[in-house]
């Protein structure tokens, strides 16, 4: 049990994934700043922000909301992100004794943070948060179908296995999934889906700071908001890792492979940041149509391409 707690809370779970995530968040801010011809923050800036929120700032609770659940929701969201992080990171780091879960469990665990953000927002009793929550849940409805189709495509490509380590082993012996046309098509779709899952522009209509003043996170402050931030850092780290694992030939931390693995993850991250910086926010109806029609068609095209062997 102590070993499992270590995996969960320290490495490769909460602490480790969070710290890397914070560095990724810095990369996000830095690249964004460079795209906008600004200087950008120093490396430690996101750490300072986080520590200040966690320890210094006052937490203001909504007067007309359900306080206990308002505070509990971020914690459960962090749990979902951490559990997903452990399952995603363990095979990449070569750990085999930790808790096991397959790609479908992962799909559900990755939905928990978003769900808890929504429920927390609704618990605050703020109408603008409700608008954000309504948008977020519609986002979930839109991208989850594409996401499961992509996962089904990966299962199909990996000869019907659900285990992440087997999917990676197969790619190491037979070549990365992205090395085929169907793989490229599905990778593009997956990139768009995790963009939505991470709530980054152009799919940030649930937060929409210029319009809803952070929407679902509007009422959060202090420690509770620090936990939400931390969850988002973890997601920013594990989502690119996940995509790299299932499409880019897996990750492998040994010898020269370390460099390749890091480059793969950074490639996905940079792509995400560039999409974020070159697109305006969509309206929720547009986003729903985009996922439910175009992205699904793209994934289905990928599945068809796989069936005809390209």
């Amino acid at each position, binding site marked *: 049990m102590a070993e499992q707690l270590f995996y969960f809370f320290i490495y490769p779970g909460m602490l480790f994934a969070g710290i890397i995530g914070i560095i990724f968040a810095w990369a996000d801010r830095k690249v964004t700043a460079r795209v906008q011809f600004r200087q950008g923050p120093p490396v430690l800036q996101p750490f300072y922000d986080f520590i200040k929120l966690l320890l210094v700032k006052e937490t203001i609770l909504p007067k007309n*909301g359900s306080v206990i659940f308002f505070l509990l929701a971020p914690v459960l969201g962090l749990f979902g992100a951490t559990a997903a992080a452990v399952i995603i990171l363990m095979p990449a780091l070569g750990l085999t004794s930790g*808790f096991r879960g*397959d790609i479908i469990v992962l799909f559900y665990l990755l939905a928990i943070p978003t769900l808890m953000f929504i429920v927390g927002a609704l618990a605050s009793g703020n109408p603008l948060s409700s608008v954000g929550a309504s948008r977020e849940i519609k986002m979930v409805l839109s991208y989850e179908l594409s996401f499961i189709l992509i996962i089904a495509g990966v299962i199909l490509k990996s000869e019907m296995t659900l285990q992440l380590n087997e999917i990676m082993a197969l790619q190491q012996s037979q070549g990365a999934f992205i090395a085929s046309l169907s793989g490229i098509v599905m990778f593009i779709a997956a990139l768009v889906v995790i963009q939505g899952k991470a709530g980054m522009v152009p799919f940030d209509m649930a937060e929409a700071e210029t319009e809803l003043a952070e929407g679902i996170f509007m009422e959060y402050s202090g420690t509770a908001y620090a936990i939400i931030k931390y969850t988002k850092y973890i997601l920013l780290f594990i989502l690119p890792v996940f995509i790299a694992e299932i499409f880019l030939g897996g990750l492998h931390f040994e010898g020269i492979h370390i460099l390749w693995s890091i480059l793969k993850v950074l490639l996905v991250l940079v792509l995400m940041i560039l999409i974020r910086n070159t697109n305006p926010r969509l309206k929720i109806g547009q986003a729903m149509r985009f996922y439910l029609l175009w992205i699904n068609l793209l994934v289905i095209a990928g599945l068809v391409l796989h069936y005809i062997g390209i």
Partner: protein
Amino acid sequence: MINDLNIIVCLPIVAGIIIFLLPDAFRILKGILALAITLIFSGFAIKIFGYADALLPLVQQTGETGLLPEVTRTLEQYTVMNINSLTTIILLFVAVLAPLICLYSIYKEKNETFPSQFYSWFLITLGSSAGTVLADNLLLFLFFWGVLGYTLYKLIRQHDAQSSDAAKKTLIIVGSSDAIMIIGIGLLWNIAGTLSISELSVHTSSGPAIMAFLLLAVGSFTKAGAFPFHTWIPSYTGKAHGVSSAYMPASFDKLIGIYFLVVLCSRIFVLNQWLTLVLLILGVATIIIAVMMALIQHNYKKLLGYHAVSQVGYMVVGIALGTPLGIAAGLFHMFNNAVYKSGLFLSATTIERKTGTVDLDKTGGLASKLPLTFITALIFALSISGIPPLNGFASKWMIYQGIVDFGQQATGVASQLWIVWLALAVLGSALTLASFIKFISGIFLGRKKEIFDNIKEVSFAQWIPVILLAVICLWFGAFSTKYVVKELFMPASGSFSFFSIWDSDLLFWLVIASIIAGILIYWIGRFKNMRRAESFVGGEKAGEDKEFPVTGFYLTVKNAPGLRQIYDLAGRKWFDLYDLLKGFVLWTNKGFSYLHTGILTTYTFWVYAGFVILLLLLIL
């Protein structure tokens, strides 16, 4: 001689009939009596769970000297009870759920109307359910099954027009399906020459066998509430008392209906791949159609009713797969559904009692007033939405595994299409989550309304059953892969190995650890430095008029091009088999009504015309 089987089948029925004699004024006494009988029932159900597989007669002959030996001998032949791992596990589930619902039902608000003679019908239902599950002969099975259809009707009827209307609809749909089943049983007798479930094994290769399967499946689909025979459930739950809904459509009808589907698919018939395909299509159609309807409901009891339908889709998908993994998953989901759905209906009853409304627009912010109800309802809601590590996730995960496993076999069209089943089942789960966010936040979260300031948490007779149901949800979720599936479901479905693995119990402990860690974080983050303030609403004054109601969440979906027309037609009952048939019958009756004009000469004419026709017939 009285044996355990007599007690489990006959005791509740006889007690139910005796309780008819007590007037409804002694309601609490009747309730306590019913609870005692239910507990005795449960005790014997647990005892029977330990039995070895056997075929035992319900009426046992005790030597030739007994009264009417011939009659007893015949009875012995027809009342064989089938004790096997499938029937005993269903019986056990019945025994777990019945006392909890019975305990909840004892409390009654002053001006609340229960169906009359509630406990008599409750007990008769209990005995008949046991009879249905255990009966080996299909005729005896059909007898108990028919009784269940009638008690269903009696358990909804209160003294108002609306519930009577729903009761009528239920009776007509369920009754017709029973009639269709009789034809199926007739066909089966014709094909196999026996009606004993333990001896039947019919290949669905010939036309009559396929027909018999489909006719019997209609009965199972109607009782469990699968598309396209599901329409009675939302009407029922929308109008009936919440306790009735928790008892019948939410739990017992699922247990019995799905039990029969398992018997059909894995015992009586051997399915061919096309029937599997049909069942899978109906399964996913049930999931998606019902949940799409649930998404737009404003009445939370009706919303739950649509979910009682939608979840059946998962069970049908699991059982249709035909593999031991699929069947175990279907059964597991059946029990999980019975637990959280009856829990949800009981919570809904509490909410209706406390607020006096079933409209999601009028409730809100009750979490702080009804904390226990909130936490349990949240567990049920997360469970039904399939959030790990709760039980709803455990069984859905098994169903997904079953689908992938089925796809791997690549034996026919149905298994080639595994991605379709997987994607639609997962989409259904996301839609379920969406509509339960509406349920939870519409009732418990959001801004608290001033009219609810005086609400108090319910008394212990009401929260104990609900908490126990929630504990079952947690426990079955946490120990699903390690214990529950292996010990309870594997004997009934046949042994199998998991396709892949996850550690449900560990995840459960980690949730607990996370919550503790969360409390610590808040403690470090200066717990005392928290203060409460009015919400910021973009500079305007916050108030009840500034609400964004949850019922408005899915207007985008409702008004989406394509969906709007479908919802519109659904609103006009275009897809309701009952209303379609009703329209047809009324339309044909229109022709007859021209003949019934009330004018004497017309009638005289018909009388004479009849005479002439008869005369002609006799002469020719």
